[in-house]
């Protein structure tokens, strides 16, 4: 395995044992990400595609098709990622590094908002702030005599707020994972030499978690620019369009090339931001904090700030978690979608069919396909999460170990792209690429394998970013010593990297799992089996106008996500026994 590389002729250096994993990674990413992306690029180079480029970039439509949506998208992306870093960083610090009361509960609550679909938060906002622009149905505040101006009810401000409330928990999860690996020894050493608290924070904690901050910033930025539900629900009434609503619309009305052009431009714009943030990280010295020595976490005593900060933490969790969940639950109980808090009934959950309510449709727990859908959903979520996690770890490892090289830069950029490719285009590319038999490989059309492949690739960014933020902190000397004692790459990965990075990896796996159990587009396009997943069942109800049933399924999905994250926390405690 370890041929001395100096003995190899120069031309064959590329294939030395150390480079092999990296090349393998390039191959995998090439197949999973670059190939579908290339297909989209090619689709925009046909005559129709070239026209689309012109229509988007240089025509009387450009301001409304590209420039204004771009501006809105940039404001959202930067605003949301800044807001998320602030809120997510604060809450992560509060939960992981201080002795604030109710830490565990806070920790659970702050992971929830990402599991609640962003449309629920948008719906909650609308329920409270909707104004007379939406005709006969006014929101809670207007019904109680407060006049809500348009800018507060619709447009960029509410979308910003709703998206921050949704995505900050993503930042919380990632930053929290990194903070928990800031060893007590560092902090104690600083305290012993007399450093004051701000000094410790800015001098030790902040630099150590910078990779996590960058990861969280990039993911929330990508999430915000790709989000469709919030800008569609809250932006459209004042004709605010973002690149994502524009590209969705173009594909939906049969002008797919324009949609693809917008998607490519969106990828390019985000690419610039990612490149800059990568420079930010690689321009400074990396701090390794996870070493072979014990990694107890040191908690700051908050003193008199204990209770105020506790209230703040819970208040934030209340606004971002309890309110949307309440609206969601209420909307699965209220017979009239316009009056969420009256005449509650359990019919939509348990009711027998045949009555007057909902044209005789029975409650979701009486739907014979529900159990099957539940099993399918779990199977899909777990499989995809596991595979993305393995793939993400391998990729993140390659990227961090080759840090600063062109290879690492290319890989990290590529691993990020799938988040920005619209899933309808992604799925179409996968069908076209793998639907036909490929050499000795059989056609994967309509199989679970194809769905898992596409889903793993589509969710790769979460796994990679989560893995990177933790791997960046693990000292290389551990691996080096293992290598010297003859451990192969798989062995090193399993015995050293995996246990040390488990928190970050599980965090990533949970994010992937959550994304997957909610996903609809990818599943309906790639999977042919009649046995549905939960999101498809919800879609069926919604398509028939039965929003209550659809919302009941969404609540069910939320419960599953919550259970998954609790299981992950338990698992992590078992693997990292040295922590307690």
């Amino acid at each position, binding site marked *: 395995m370890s041929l001395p590389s100096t003995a190899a002729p120069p031309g064959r250096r590329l294939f030395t044992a150390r480079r092999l994993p990296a090349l393998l990674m390039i191959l995998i990413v090439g197949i999973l990400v670059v190939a579908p992306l290339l297909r989209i690029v090619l689709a925009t180079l046909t005559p129709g595609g070239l026209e689309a480029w012109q*229509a988007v970039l240089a025509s*009387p*439509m450009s301001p*409304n*098709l590209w420039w204004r949506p771009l501006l809105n998208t940039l404001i959202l992306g930067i605003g949301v990622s800044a807001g998320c870093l602030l809120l997510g960083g604060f809450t992560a610090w509060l939960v992981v590094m201080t002795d604030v009361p109710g830490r565990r509960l806070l920790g659970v609550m702050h992971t929830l908002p990402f599991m609640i679909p962003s449309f629920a938060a948008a719906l909650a906002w609308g329920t409270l702030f909707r104004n007379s*622009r*939406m*005709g*006969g*149905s006014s929101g809670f505040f207007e019904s109680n005599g407060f006049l809500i101006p348009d800018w507060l009810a619709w447009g960029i401000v509410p979308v910003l707020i709703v998206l921050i409330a949704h995505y900050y928990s993503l930042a919380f999860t990632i930053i929290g994972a990194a903070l928990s690996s800031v060893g007590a020894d560092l902090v104690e050493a600083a305290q012993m030499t007399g450093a004051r608290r701000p000094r410790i924070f800015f001098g030790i904690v902040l630099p150590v978690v910078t990779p996590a901050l960058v990861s969280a910033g990039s993911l929330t930025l990508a999430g915000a620019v790709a989000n469709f539900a919030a800008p*569609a*629900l809250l932006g*459209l*009434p004042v*004709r605010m*369009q973002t690149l994502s*609503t*524009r590209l*969705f*619309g*173009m*594909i*939906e*009305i*049969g*002008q*797919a090339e324009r949609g693809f052009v917008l998607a490519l431009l969106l990828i390019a714009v985000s690419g610039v931001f990612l490149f800059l943030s990568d420079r930010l990280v690689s321009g400074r010295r990396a701090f390794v904090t996870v070493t072979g020595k014990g990694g107890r976490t040191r908690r700051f005593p908050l003193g008199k700030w204990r209770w105020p900060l506790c209230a703040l933490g819970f208040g934030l969790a209340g606004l971002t978690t309890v309110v949307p969940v309440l609206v969601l639950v209420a909307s699965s109980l209220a*017979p*009239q*979608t*316009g*009056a969420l808090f009256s005449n509650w009934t359990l019919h939509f959950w348990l009711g027998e069919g045949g009555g007057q*309510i*909902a*044209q005789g449709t029975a409650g979701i727990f009486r739907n014979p396909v529900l159990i099957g859908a539940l099993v399918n959903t779990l199977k899909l979520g777990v499989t995809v999460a596991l595979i993305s996690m393995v793939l993400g770890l391998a990729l993140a490892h390659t990227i961090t170990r080759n840090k600063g090289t062109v290879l690492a830069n290319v890989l990290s950029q590529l691993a990020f792209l799938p988040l920005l490719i619209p899933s*309808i285009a992604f*799925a*179409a*590319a996968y*069908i*076209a*690429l*793998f*639907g*036909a038999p490929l050499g000795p490989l059989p*056609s994967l*059309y*309509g199989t679970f394998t194809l769905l898992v492949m596409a889903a793993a690739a589509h969710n790769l960014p979460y796994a990679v970013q989560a893995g990177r933020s933790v791997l960046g902190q693990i000292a290389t000397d551990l691996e080096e010593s293992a290598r010297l004692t003859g451990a192969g790459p798989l062995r090193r990965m399993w015995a050293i990297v995996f246990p040390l990075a488990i928190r970050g990896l599980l965090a990533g796996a949970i994010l992937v799992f959550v994304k997957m159990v909610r996903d609809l*587009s990818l599943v*309906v*396009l790639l999977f*042919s089996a*009649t046995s549905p997943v939960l999101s*498809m069942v919800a*879609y*069926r109800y919604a*398509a*028939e*106008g039965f*929003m209550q049933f659809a919302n009941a399924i969404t609540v069910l999905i939320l419960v599953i996500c919550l259970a998954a994250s609790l299981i992950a926390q338990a698992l992590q405690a078992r693997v990292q026994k040295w922590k307690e």
Partner: protein
Amino acid sequence: MLKTLKAALLAAACVPALAAAQDLDQMTPDALYELAKQEGTVTVFSLSSRIARVEKAFEEAYPGVDLVGIDLSSAKQVARVVAEQQAGVHAVDVLYLADAPVVLRDLLAPGRIKTYVPPRVADQIDAEFKAPLLVHRLSTKVLMYNEAAYPDGSPITNLWQLTLPDWRGKVMMVDPTQRGELLDLLTEIALHPDEMAAAYKAQFGTDLAVDSDLTGAGEQFIRNLFLNDLVLVSNSDDLNKAVGIKDATNPPVAFGTYSDRRDNEEEGWALQVANDVVPANGILFPAVLAVADKAPHPAAARLLIDFMFGDDSADGGPAFAPFNVPGDYATRTTIADDPDSVPLEGLKAWTINTEAVAEHRARIADLIITLQ
């Protein structure tokens, strides 16, 4: 020489296959059933989840043929079929979808689907619904108002009234750059310049001056409508709530779906169609049934399409029952319209001209984009 020989051979080889397909097209349901039993299954992409109820009825009527129904929106069906056929995969038999103009351009023209008209019901369907695409039923995007707030009938009797200051910010629709049906609606309006010009004169007493960069009164109407602060929303649920809530004062009007009126009682809405509108109150648009190219189960595919047109009773029997919704209209003339809704002949909506809309749709989309 060799080339011609080859071509002749190829043609000869093709003839039986072609003949077989033609045979299938002429067969009675019974004959199709015999073949379908050997095929064993039929796969359908459906825009409506009501396909689950069709599945039950179909499998009861034709035991031995398993119906696999997959819910997919029209845009996704088109994307999937195009991608599949490019990869050489022919897995689906029947498509049931709307967005007819896109279907025409992306599926029918390149030969990815074909139109099959069941001989059993061919005489009972008007010619315009049999070609180029077979239309199963018609849905609506028409002007809806709140009958509780306006008890004397629709406050709008002429489309041009929607461009008056009184209705500024009080006309709603789902964003036509995000939903094909609404784009079709505006395109169809643009395709009736003379009627729109006459309606303008009827409303204002003067002739309409059309802006120099526009063609026709329909396009001018679209521009004026957007300039009058047309409110766009992302889904019909929001729309119905805004227009329909019973105790609303001065609620807006909206281009919505007539059949949503069936939810009035349950949701506490007072949605009603504004039918007495010149020159029209909106559009009727088709839901299309088609056989996919190289369908793996060609006989079962035809049997299913035949089945979905229902039996000879006035409500079409269990096969059509899932689609017999007040405010939607069957194209098969033997199936009676719902007694409580405006009959098809009485509805003042334009039935979209699929081919013309397909031709002009992109141009109208461009116009709308500049207006947003």
